[in-house]
């Protein structure tokens, strides 16, 4: 078990910088998920921790020991690849034991480790099969087994579930969670799927275009996003963004007028920057963020908003209304299935909302 510390880590491919100074502190035994859209540099960051990519700048320490120039095999990590990366010509048993046998680990110990991994992952009956003869989920188990056998201090996962179908993905997600509880080892997990991040992580690192946007516990990110990107990325369906303009100030915060709907005003309490300081300026453009579940029935909140309904999706217990504001902006509204009216226009109230400035930074 070990901590993992990234100190201003930079990665350049030629002249292109793809990771712009990452600072992350992973605690001992913690499950940390790197999440972000495709191409934002998650894999690159993970591969630098593994030692599969050189570090262009900054420092990486594992268990308090600087590993910038340490060979991948000596870093005490094990990695599970998205494509499984199993040895195709070896049986499951050989896949698990190959590394240990090649490096002259005593046979008895190798057998013990392989047996233990097989038990943890319940792949005992598969030991004689080749990867070709396994289903996607079984292959993924073997890939995880190969990592367990190394008895690493840190597990690294690079999108391990993205080649599985939806149902299996949920199942394996639970298994990985269970594995973390059982082993208690530090795990770093990369995914582009915010649901995976929310359900698995002790802490989430949200990345965009090589920058870390926010680090925090899942519910902290959900309840208290630092910026519009994180607010939009975390949560499903996404947070709605309705454009507006600051028209006034009161004792608690600011008053926002929604674009194209002069009569609809949202009072937004601000606690951080003192409103008297003249920031944010009256007249400046803002985005009002409202999660689908924070729309209430008319009159329940401070502000009522009239929207036209395009499509209603019934999921059983809850329904999602895909609607449009008077200004033509798309919004998704969550409702109890029983409370969905059969009309084309409804009035909803805005309950909890978030305010973002023109740069996408949270105003609070």
């Amino acid at each position: 078990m070990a901590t993992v510390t990234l100190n201003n880590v930079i990665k350049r491919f030629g002249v292109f910088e793809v990771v712009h100074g990452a600072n992350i502190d992973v605690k001992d035994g913690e499950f940390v998920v790197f999440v972000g859209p495709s191409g934002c540099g998650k894999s690159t960051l993970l591969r630098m921790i593994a030692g599969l990519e050189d570090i262009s700048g900054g420092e990486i320490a594992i268990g308090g020991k600087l590993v910038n120039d340490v060979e991948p095999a000596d870093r005490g990590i094990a990695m599970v690849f998205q494509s499984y990366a199993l040895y195709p010509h070896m049986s499951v048993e050989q896949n698990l034991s190959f590394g240990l046998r090649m490096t002259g680990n005593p046979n008895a110990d190798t057998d013990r480790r392989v047996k233990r991994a097989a038990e943890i992952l319940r792949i005992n009956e598969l030991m004689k099969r080749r990867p070709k003869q396994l289903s996607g989920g079984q292959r993924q188990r073997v890939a995880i087994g190969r990592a367990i056998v190394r008895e690493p201090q840190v597990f690294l996962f690079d999108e391990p579930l993205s080649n599985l179908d939806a149902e299996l993905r949920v199942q394996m997600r639970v298994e990985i969670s269970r594995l973390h509880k059982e082993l208690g080892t530090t795990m770093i997990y990369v995914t582009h799927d915010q649901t995976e991040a929310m359900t698995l992580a002790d802490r989430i690192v949200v990345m965009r275009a090589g920058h870390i946007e926010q680090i925090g516990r899942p519910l902290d990110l959900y309840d208290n996003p630092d910026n519009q990107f994180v607010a939009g990325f975390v949560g499903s369906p996404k947070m709605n963004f309705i454009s507006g303009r600051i028209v006034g100030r009161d004792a608690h915060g600011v008053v926002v007028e929604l674009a194209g709907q002069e009569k609809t005003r949202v009072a937004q309490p601000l606690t951080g920057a003192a409103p008297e300081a003249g920031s944010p300026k009256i007249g400046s453009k803002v985005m009002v963020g409202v999660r689908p579940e924070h729309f209430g029935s008319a009159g329940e909140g401070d502000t009522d908003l009239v929207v036209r309904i395009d499509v209603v999706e019934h999921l059983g217990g809850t329904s999602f209304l895909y609607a449009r504001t008077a200004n033509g902006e798309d919004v998704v509204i969550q409702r109890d299935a029983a409370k969905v009216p059969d009309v084309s226009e409804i009035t909803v109230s805005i309950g909890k909302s978030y305010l973002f400035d023109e740069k996408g930074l949270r105003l609070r």
Partner: protein
Amino acid sequence: MRYQNATAYRFLAPYLLIFAIFWVWPIIDSFMISFQATRTVPWRFAPTFNWGRLIGDPAFFNALKNTLLILVIQVPVMITLALVMAVLLNSPLLKARGLYRFAFFAPVVVGEVAYSAVFRLMFNLNFGIINKLLNSVGLPSVDWFSNVTPAMALIMIAVTWRWAGYNAIILLAGMQSIPEDVYEAATLDRVSKLKQFFFITLPLLKPVIVFCLVLSIIGTMQLFTEPFLITERGGPGGGTETLGLLLYRQGFRSLNFGYASAVAYTMAGLAIAITLVQLWLTREPK
């Protein structure tokens, strides 16, 4: 659907016709000719005439011995060399990869006569560069063309030069189809580069290696150009005569088509037999 198939075959007809006349028929015809005495006019059916001669003919066994000797030595050496070349071509350290790839492949497209002439000059006893090089490191000159062993070696060197690069390119394609992350996993498993080659690359490359072996075996069974042009029709004194050359000598110089056909079928039969044995030896365990 039926109608469409018929139309397709009508369009294919010219090709199929020519294929039948110039491919299928000669194959059948030569099989029948191998059972005929072709030194008499008219030819007459004599099943044991050619085949009987074949199993007692010292010239045939000489050619067979030479062919198999070249096969057994040259093919493994060449494939090993091709593997080494493919590994070098695949190395991320290599600069100007395209240039090397072209250079390795070039011998295949060089004209046979030109290539043979150059080899004859390079290995010339008095002024060839090979003997000059041998002398410069203190070794005596070798008369490559008048002694059987050096002549056989020369044939093998020439064939290897011509086809090693070709096989290397095929092997390279096979290597590049092995996913990079398998090697990364092995690196994390602390498996050295050398062990990665022997325990990952080679096993995964096996189907491609077998393919190269089969191609080379078939090619060597038919070996003709080098002993014909470089060692001058199987010289010295038949010392490098191959089955291909024997066939040519019997068929097109003595016009003994029956015997040449029997030799041809022996070559084809041997190539198929050796290939099957080889495929069986290297089959995937269930």
